[in-house]
Each structure stands twice: as C-alpha cells, then as structure tokens.
C-alpha cells in the first residue's frame, strides 16, 4: 500500500538558479514521483517526476494525447480538439496516419543529407551576427533565424519570402510582441502556408511538404495543419536550445574549452545539453487517462490529466550520476528530452543536425565569445512552455 499523498498543489515554476529546474520538482521526485496537481482552473490532476515513470506513461496508449482532454498546469485555456493535420494532439489511428506520411522524410539518412544546407544557413547567420556587433543579441541574429530558415527548406518557402516568414515566426514565439501581435502573426502565417500548399499542389518541388502532399491524399486544411505543426514544434524548441545551450556553455567555461579543443565531442555535447536544459518545461508532454490506471501504486482515474516533467526526469539520480552536473562526455545518456513512445519527437534527428553544426561553427567563428552582460541579467522564459533566453547579448 502506497503512503498517503499530500493534497493537490500548484505546479512549481520558480527556479532558484537559471539552468536548473525548480527545486520543488526534485523534492517531489524523491518523495512522491507521482503526486497530485492543482490546476489554475480549479480542477485536479497528476504530476509525474521520475524518469522510469515518465517513460512508462509516454509509452502507454491508455494515456491520451487528445488536445481537448489535456489541461495546462499553469494557465486556463480553451479545450478544443486538434485542427486537421496537427497530429501531436491526436491518438491512434488518426495520429499514425499522419505521422507515417512524414517519418520517411525524417530518417537519419535524409536529415544528414540536409546538413550541407544547414551549414550554409549557420554561416549566413554568423555573418549577420558578426556584422551586428559586438555586442550582438545572439537570440535575434542566430538562435531564432537558424531553425526558421531550416523550416523554410522543409516547406519549400521561396527565398523572396524568407524575410516575412522570419518576422512572423519570431513574432509568434516572442513575448516582446503581445498576445494580439502573436495572434496576428499566426493568422498571417496560416494564410501564407495555405498559399504555399496551393503552390506545391500546382508545381511540386523537391521539398518535404511537396512530398507529403504528393503521397498523402490530404485536404488543404490537413496539409496546412501539418506545415503549421512542423513550424510550431520545430522552431521555438530548436532556437531555445541554440540560445540557452550557448548560455550554458558560457556559464561552464571548462566544458566550453573541452568542446572547443575537440569538436569531435559535439555529438555528446548536444545530448548532454538536451538533458541538462530540458527546455520543454510543461504543456509539451501532457496526457490524460482514458481509463483507470494504477501508476506507482496510485489510482489515476479515467479523465484525469497528467503532466509529465521532462526536466525532473532528466535530472533523476536513479538514472544519471551527478545529474545536476553538465558533463559533455557523459555516456550513456538516456535522456527523454525528445519524449518517448509513439509521439517521440519526429524532428529529433533534424534538431540534432542543426545543433551539431551550429555550436562548433559558433565557437570557431568567435574564439573570444563571451557574455556582454552579467549572467543574472540574461532575461529568461520562466513562464513559457519552452524555456530559453529572451535575449543573449554576447561580445567577442
């Protein structure tokens, strides 16, 4: 019989140190890795903080991904079903039908073939950075545009529109633009993606989106939904990793020196930054029980929402020695930064290619790279589902 649980508590979001998850999550993982959560709308749910348990839930089809069944642990939101094509918020068989259309495009081999384009994009953005400073805001000149331009490649966005595309994607993810601006940007992007889909139907190109439209017997609405999902899932996350990853390396000069001395460590450095930073803080890996399930001795009732803490799982001392240390030579590294199970990140191999190219190129270009402000003055995205730096002023 499991011991009595503390009453439902709000989701902890306050960090004591910028690069570590809220300490309260670690305490819960030690005492009650499955605990009760109080949502801001007054309902209750569950919070899972242990690595093995997070993996278990993500691999269990009794826990649904349907958007209308999920609850945010930090804000009150409407509960609407996922739009056509947005399969991250769907269960089988709808989810697999869409996902299978895309998996062939995201294989290790295909994404490696994109590496040459990624290298070009990275060098271009480093040119922009160099021209802008020192000092320069690395988020604006590097972390935001690199993933946005890579997604332009996937969607086959014509070069003339890259500027518009970047402006809208930036407005959509940044808080500097208020909610009204980001909604306007989302509407502009949706209209733009509809034009792109129509153009690809008329004259298919060699890009991923043309391939999907060609293979899929999709409605226009579905094709736009898929394009929007790739953008939303792939932009904010990868730019968060590029910005915060650079910040983390600058805060750990010993690790930065190791990577600088041996770029062969880049693969391991990327895995360790993914684990250590675990930028999907909440809302991204969320589920809801479709039937009563016993999890670690607790009865989760049908209909109850479950929040999975990827940051807590990736600092679990049961799996990682010295979990709070950033160690770019750590092996093995069984982190769950890309999730697990049937919804495991579709773009993970592409994200890996982007980071493996970007970090060493940045260090090569700027041998004297340093923060241009005190570390505590780097503004961070504490209250947003995807953690990261709002700005990263650097000099060289």
């Amino acid at each position: 019989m499991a011991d009595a649980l503390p009453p439902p508590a709000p989701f902890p979001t306050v960090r004591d140190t910028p690069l570590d998850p809220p300490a309260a999550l670690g305490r819960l993982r030690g005492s009650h890795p499955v605990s009760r959560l109080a949502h801001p709308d007054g309902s209750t749910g569950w919070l899972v903080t242990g690595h093995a348990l997070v993996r278990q839930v993500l691999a269990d089809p009794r826990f649904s991904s349907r958007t209308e069944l999920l609850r945010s642990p930090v804000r009150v939101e409407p509960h609407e079903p996922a739009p056509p094509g947005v399969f991250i918020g769907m269960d089988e068989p709808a989810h697999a039908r869409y996902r299978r259309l895309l998996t062939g495009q995201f294989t290790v081999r295909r994404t490696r073939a994109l590496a040459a384009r990624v290298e070009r994009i990275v060098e271009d953005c480093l040119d922009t950075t160099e021209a802008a400073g020192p000092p320069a805001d690395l988020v604006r000149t590097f972390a935001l545009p690199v993933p946005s331009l890579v997604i332009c490649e996937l969607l086959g966005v014509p070069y003339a529109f890259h500027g518009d595309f970047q402006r809208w994607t930036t407005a959509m993810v940044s808080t500097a633009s208020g909610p009204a601006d980001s909604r306007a940007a989302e509407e502009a992007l949706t209209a733009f993606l509809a034009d792109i889909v129509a153009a690809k139907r008329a004259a298919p190109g060699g890009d991923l989106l043309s391939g999907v439209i060609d293979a899929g017997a999709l409605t226009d609405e579905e094709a736009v939904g898929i394009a929007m999902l790739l953008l939303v899932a792939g932009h904010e996350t990868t730019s968060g990793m590029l910005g915060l990853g650079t910040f983390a390396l600058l805060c750990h000069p010993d690790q930065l020196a190791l990577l600088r001395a041996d770029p062969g460590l880049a693969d391991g450095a990327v895995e360790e930054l993914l684990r250590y930073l675990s930028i999907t803080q909440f809302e991204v890996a969320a589920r809801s029980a479709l039937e009563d399930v016993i999890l670690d001795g607790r009865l989760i009732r049908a209909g109850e929402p479950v929040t999975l803490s990827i940051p807590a799982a990736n600092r679990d001392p049961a799996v990682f020695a010295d979990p709070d240390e950033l160690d770019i030579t750590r092996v093995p590294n069984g982190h769950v930064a890309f999730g697990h199970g049937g919804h495991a990140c579709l773009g993970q191999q592409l994200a890996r290619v982007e980071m493996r190219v970007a970090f060493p190129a940045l260090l090569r270009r700027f041998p004297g790279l340093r923060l241009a402000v005190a570390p505590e003055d780097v503004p961070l995205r504490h209250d947003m589902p995807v953690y990261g730096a709002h700005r990263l002023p650097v000099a060289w």
Partner: protein
Amino acid sequence: MSRIRIEADPGRCVGSGMCALLAPGLFDQSEEDGTVGVRDGAPPDTQRATAAAAAAARCPAGAIRIGDG
C-alpha cells in the same frame, strides 16, 4: 563468446531513427516510411553487440529485441 540475435518490429517502430544513429551497421530505416530494418541480425563482435543493446534501450517504441543467437 555467445552470439546474440537482433529483431526489430517495423509495426511498432515510430521512425525516430535512434537505432540508425547509434548502430548504423546494424539498423537501417526504410526510404518510404522511416521504419526500421535489421541489416545484420547476428553481429559477431562485442562492440557491435553493445551498440545493439544501446539502440534497444533508447528505442522510444520498444521495437528492438535482443535474444540469444
């Protein structure tokens, strides 16, 4: 040294590419839908057996099984 046998179930596979990343000599992904194929089901040396075990542990879909040869 005892031999091992590697099996992968394309029906369970979610096309994450972890196996092809960690053990490219042993696993491959189909061009069409990214699902797993085993290139070499009975790797002879310990190094590759270790790579196979790492892939099985990291596979997000539990689609890779390693048994005795």
